[in-house]
């Protein structure tokens, strides 16, 4: 007897279909599993056999073969327990093979037949929909998450017995005992106002850095803050996600998929509604940053997609950890190669970094700074110029005076600033439609020529600045991009002199001039 059911595995953030086949035929009693399986999939055999027996189904002493196709792709994870059980039940004749057509299953079994949740449900259900399946059976724990996908019926199973007709007398149809998603967990309440618990209006003083942060957010520019300890750099960084425009549905689903694969999606709130803020400690390894492992998992840069990756104490990070950021910053995705395939995870994050001006943190205040002559340049020397080249905006936070610390002025709330950012982002989306760019920060040399033309007056200003301030060609490009964003903030069609001037003010100092 032969039984077959669909399942799916995930590579990168996308799923692919796996068909699970079971065959029971005469011969020496044997339970054989084939199909390029990782050891946890191989162990599924023991789990499934025991779970079935504990649900009252004994496997006959025959030659049982289970195959996971396509056989040339490695399969990993515990998600195949449930489909293997279902395929065996179909082969035994317990389930009607016709009812299993167009059904995708995934879930982990415990020995008593309970079904546990698994990571990566969201991309799997999406795969099911794209393959034309009509129904998905997932662990009940993952039901809310699965219900996020439109256009496919999802059902939750808490126990293997719910699938057995003999255990559910009086119910018609194979899946009638399964749970349907609750109505309210549907997509209706998806995109409410995000709540972050912190607000931009809580920041005292630091007008320069605050303005620079807003410009950075408006064009999704990478942002570097320099300042003595306690000047509020981390505080500002934590509030940057609150002024980013709310996630769109696509962004939100993409992000949820990444978190689903990483197993970080909370059961109660399966959709990520807030922009992520990832602030890894500076001891982080390069692999934890990019993602990796034997079976590659998304790293911090992917978990910060559509949000903020905050690197506090930038020079304290391992050199290699910082250098691996360069390629994802350029390409918006990270590729992890393994002998059995390449995994691609999205990594379109806004990089926000903070650092002290020197080891003790008080340079250039010579009455407080205790660093020796070479120490300041050695401290800054830990950053490579290519990384600094990717920081579009740079601002220094001064030490706060007492008046600023306690001063209570009417400050803009995150919600007000966010409205402005929504407008600017919309403007950019419209401008870059069909060009492959998303934000001003994405512009390359060609894009700058096409989308950021300068008038003769502005050209003159830039030329003067270039010569006088010893700018590099790269710095010039960055200034134009940032000027474009500042012009967008004022909803001006052309880049004006004043926009350029403000942008020049945000330029990162070239290391050569910085360390002297």
């Amino acid at each position, binding site marked *: 007897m032969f039984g077959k059911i669909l399942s799916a595995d995930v590579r990168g953030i996308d799923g692919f279909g796996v068909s699970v086949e079971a065959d029971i035929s005469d011969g020496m009693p044997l339970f054989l599993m084939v199909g390029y399986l990782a050891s946890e999939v191989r162990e599924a055999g023991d789990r499934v056999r025991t779970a079935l027996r504990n649900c009252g189904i004994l496997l006959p002493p025959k030659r049982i073969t289970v195959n996971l196709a396509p056989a040339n792709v490695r399969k990993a994870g515990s998600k195949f327990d449930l489909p293997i059980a279902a395929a065996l039940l179909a082969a035994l004749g317990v389930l009607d093979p016709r009812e299993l057509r167009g059904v995708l299953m995934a879930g982990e079994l415990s020995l008593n037949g309970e079904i546990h949740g698994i990571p990566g449900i969201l991309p799997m259900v999406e795969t099911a929909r794209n393959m034309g399946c009509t129904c998905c059976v997932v662990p009940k724990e993952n039901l809310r998450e699965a219900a996020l996908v439109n256009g496919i019926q999802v059902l939750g199973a808490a126990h293997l017995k719910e699938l057995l007709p003999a255990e559910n007398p009086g119910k018609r149809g194979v899946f009638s005992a399964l749970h349907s998603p609750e109505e309210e967990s549907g997509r209706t309440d998806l995109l409410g106002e995000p709540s972050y618990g912190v607000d931009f209006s809580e920041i005292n003083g630091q007008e320069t850095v605050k303005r620079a942060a807003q410009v950075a957010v408006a064009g999704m520019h990478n942002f570097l803050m320099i300042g003595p300890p306690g000047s509020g750099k981390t505080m500002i960084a934590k509030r940057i996600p609150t002024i980013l425009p709310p996630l769109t549905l696509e962004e939100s689903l993409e992000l949820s998929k990444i978190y689903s694969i990483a197993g970080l999606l909370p059961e109660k709130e399966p959709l990520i509604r807030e922009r992520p803020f990832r602030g890894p400690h500076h001891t982080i390894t390069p692999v934890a940053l990019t993602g990796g492992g034997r079976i590659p998992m998304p790293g911090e840069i992917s978990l910060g997609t559509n949000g903020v990756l905050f690197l506090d104490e930038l020079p304290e990070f391992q050199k290699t950890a910082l250098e691996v950021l360069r390629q994802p910053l350029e390409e918006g995705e990270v590729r992890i190669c393994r002998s059995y395939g390449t995994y691609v995870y999205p990594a379109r994050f806004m990089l926000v970094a903070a650092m002290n001006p020197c080891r003790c943190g008080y340079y*250039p205040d*010579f009455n407080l700074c205790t660093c020796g002559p070479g120490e300041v340049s050695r401290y800054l020397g830990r950053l490579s110029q290519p990384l600094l080249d990717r920081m579009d905006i*740079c601002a*220094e936070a*001064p030490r706060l005076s007492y008046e600023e610390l306690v001063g209570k002025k009417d400050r803009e709330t995150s919600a007000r600033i966010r409205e402005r950012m929504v407008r600017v982002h919309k403007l950019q989306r419209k401008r870059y439609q069909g060009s492959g760019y998303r934000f001003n920060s994405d512009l390359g040399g060609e894009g700058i020529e096409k989308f950021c033309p300068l008038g003769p007056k502005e050209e003159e200003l830039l030329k003067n*600045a270039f010569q006088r*301030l010893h700018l590099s060609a790269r710095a010039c490009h960055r200034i134009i991009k940032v000027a474009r964003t500042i012009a967008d903030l004022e909803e001006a069609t052309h880049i004006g002199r004043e926009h350029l001037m403000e942008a*020049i003010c945000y330029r990162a100092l070239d290391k050569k001039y*910085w360390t002297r």
Partner: protein
Amino acid sequence: MEAYWYWICHELYLERVWARELLHCYGSPRAVFEAKEEDIKKRFPKKAIKYKEIFQRRRAWEPKRALEELKRAEIAFYSCAAREFPTLLKKMPDSPLGLFVRGSLPREGELTVAVVGARRCSSYGRMTAQSFGGILAQRGVGIISGMAAGVDGYAHRGALERGGVTYAVLGCGVDICYPGQNRDLYSAIPERGGLISEYPPGTPPLPRLFPLRNRLISGLSRAVLVVEARERSGSLITADLALDQGRDVFAVPGRIGDALSEGCNRLISQGAGIALSPEKFLEELGVEGAGKSPGEEKNKKSLESSEFLVYSCLGLQAQHIEEICRKTRLPLLQVMKILVSLEIKGCVCEVQKNYYSRDSVSSSKTEIY
């Protein structure tokens, strides 16, 4: 004879007293070189063990060839007996046995001034050093300093920028560039002055060599100007040495409470000259026509009223943008724009990210329309 002097400078640059005794004993450097090992041991029994290696190396030393090799490396050598050896140094108490030079030595009778100060200087020290170095050099004064990081380096840079002559006295061999960040100076100075050292080529920059070279900085100059110095710093050692050598000492005044100006202010309270401006300083040095500054025409710049407002708020101490905003009561964005336009006009400079100061001392005299 220079060849034997070279050998003495090569081996005994740290033992000048003993070297003099040896010379006195044997009469000439050649006689010292050719003296029997046993003979020297007998006369100076205490030194014998310590200088066993010197005797060993002496066997392989060929004086003529060594001097030729030095010439091939474009390093000139002047012993204290040579005609070219600066008279100023000859009169000095602990004068060096010889000098290694890349480039040239100060001419006899050339007016030279030493500009020294802290290695880790503030923007104030940097601006002052650069403009004093520049303006003095422009008026034909040779600027002498130690090519260290900070004030020393900026004094050299100022002189080179204005086409002046400048000499660097090093604490290592003249074939070694130390500190590495001053590589630009190291390659530019020999063409417009000279790199000078009493240490033979190949001597690494050892900490104990630097205080000794300070006596040459002051010794080679007519006056010493201390730009920024902490209490108990190397620059004050130079100032003390200068007084011992009978040179004039001047100091650039600073604000009280600034750690970096404490040394300078102390010097002034002890009677050092006050360097109020490069022009005043030139007058004190007795340079003719010091009051006028011929090359300053280009400094006339036209500023708008708001630019002038911001400019007049700035000093040589770097200030953060927000401080400037508070002082001028102008909105942040406007101040940013004004600062950038002033920067492009060359009136202010961004010392550190978002910290601004005036570009140079002389531009405080900029006429503004």
